[in-house]
């Protein structure tokens, strides 16, 4: 019953053994991990629903996505949700990683948590890469050809990696089942395993305490759990509204033999790497030393990834501020490259008009749903927040009662 009390003997400087906060109310960055988990669950649900109608072969894939968008009731919302959610999930996981890097919570015994987290970030990115091909449209086929071509420059193993992903020397009908298997089976299982360990390690090694005075205790429930619920509720509500108001589009069916469309570029989370590779192509003087532009960009990318993965080894206690500045510089570079690439050129590929027309027709019909939906979201938020407020008041009065006794 009494959730407030804790053993007073516990040393508050030690990280607690469970998910319990001590100190001030957690900062917003503390909600990123749990939000990412919620978004992942949403991806699983919408993904399984899409699986019911999706046909994983290059002949039917595009048409089955069209059927989901136009013929299946609510199919367009489910697919739009899955697509929009993937972007938000990747963004959330990236911010989570950035927060951890800046707060340096990866040191010493917390490094296993960090390593599993890094694996999760890679899995989420890889999930985005493999899922992008599945509708088999013009852009995704070309983007996948470019993406799978990258590792070919690596010495020795490179060509094998490329061929493994393509299922041959070039993108074709045999590529899609591979990406499908990776997207719905291999990566999700890895994610489940890594996430399990991630949570076990967090419970074992504790969470970071929010900075500030440690006098007031903020318990996990209700303050953290209920606010987290509010965050998830709003993220879901905004995602669903975005999925309804801005439905995902479907570009014309892809053809591995067709020329690449003008202004082709990958999804935003790969734009920085894409732009770095393009820019390093300008450093022609290096080719006289025997370093090709592709190899150089791979060395740069590999170096950045290596530093990111090995952060707990590189940045030991007393390491100073240098690594924090490096992280900041890398973040600024990432954002700058992404923006530069985003405003540089956009691929001009029209979406299938049938899908777009149907979506705008359905969108009008769904607007009536949004009113009761948002009403319930706001009501639920209000109730949850007043629960937290009420709990705070009870805690305060109990604490003052304690003080009075002493």
């Amino acid at each position, binding site marked *: 019953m009494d959730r407030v009390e804790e053993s007073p003997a516990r040393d508050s400087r030690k990280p607690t053994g469970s998910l319990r906060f001590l100190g001030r109310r957690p900062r917003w960055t503390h909600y990123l991990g749990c939000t990412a988990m919620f978004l992942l669950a949403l991806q699983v649900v919408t993904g399984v*629903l899409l699986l019911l109608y999706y046909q994983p072969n290059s002949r039917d894939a595009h048409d089955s996505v069209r059927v989901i968008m136009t*013929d299946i*009731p609510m199919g367009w*919302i*489910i697919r739009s949700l899955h697509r929009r959610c993937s972007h938000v999930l990747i963004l959330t996981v990236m911010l989570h990683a950035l927060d951890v890097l800046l707060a340096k919570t990866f040191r010493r015994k917390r490094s296993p948590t960090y390593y599993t987290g890094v694996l999760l970030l890679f899995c989420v990115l890889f999930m985005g890469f493999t899922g992008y091909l599945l509708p088999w449209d013009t852009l995704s086929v070309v983007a996948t050809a470019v993406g799978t071509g990258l590792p070919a420059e690596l010495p020795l193993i490179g060509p094998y990696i490329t061929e493994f992903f393509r299922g041959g020397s070039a993108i074709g009908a045999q590529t899609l089942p591979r990406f499908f298997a990776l997207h719905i089976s291999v990566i999700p299982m890895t994610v489940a395993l890594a996430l399990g360990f991630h949570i076990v390690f967090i419970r074992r090694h504790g969470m970071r305490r929010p900075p500030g005075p440690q006098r007031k205790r903020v318990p996990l429930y209700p303050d953290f759990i209920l606010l987290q619920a509010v965050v998830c509720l709003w993220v879901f509500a905004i995602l669903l509204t975005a999925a309804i108001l801005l439905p995902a589009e479907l570009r014309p069916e892809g053809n591995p033999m067709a020329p690449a469309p003008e202004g082709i570029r990958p999804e935003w989370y790969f734009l920085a790497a894409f732009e770095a590779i393009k820019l390093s192509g300008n450093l022609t003087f290096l080719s006289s030393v025997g370093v090709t532009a592709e190899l150089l960009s791979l060395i740069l990318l590999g170096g950045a990834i290596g530093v990111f993965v090995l952060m707990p080894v590189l940045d030991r206690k007393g390491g100073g501020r240098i690594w924090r500045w490096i992280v900041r510089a890398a973040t600024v570079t990432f954002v700058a490259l992404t923006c530069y690439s985003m405003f540089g050129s956009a691929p001009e590929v029209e979406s299938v008009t049938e899908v777009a027309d149907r979506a705008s027709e359905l969108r009008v019909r769904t607007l009536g749903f949004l009113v009761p939906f948002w009403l*319930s*979201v706001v009501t*639920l938020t209000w109730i949850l927040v007043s*629960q937290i407020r009420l709990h705070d008041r009870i805690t305060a009065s109990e604490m003052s009662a304690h003080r009075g006794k002493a």
Partner: protein
Amino acid sequence: MTQRHIPYSLVDRRSFLGRISAIVGAGFFAQLVLPVWRYLFPGMSREPDKVEFTEDMLAQLNALEPGQCFRFQWGGVPGLALRARDGELRVFKGVCTHADCNVAWRSANNDFFCACHDGRYDEFGKNIEGPPPRPLTRLFAEFEGSLEAGITKLTVWRSESVRLKEQEGA
């Protein structure tokens, strides 16, 4: 009337808020159930109201000898158009009424046979042997021309009442 002041509340705020949030939360999720339900049951393979024969299908139908049967697609199951030996065109849903197996027309025995549990129907679709509880479902055929001179147009309806309803609607 005297007002009596109760110095305590029968329902404390915490449990009140808890209950309210459970109710509103249930309402929130209930809103999401219906769309997902509709997604799960799109009703795409529902039995059709009618099937219109194409030129190609008509050509095959006209090529039948008496005592032969033409199989066509009736929604997700086979339809059987039988040119009976008595000269009539009879159309059935080719699914056994016992356990949903597809039946076969046996020209030599002049019967429909279901191999799953050895059910037999005669050329009128009547169940005559084995476990089938009912006759084969008869479909309503509306056609122009005749079997002898060649059928020029054929529409197979789920039943005659469906056809009447659609004609009234139109």
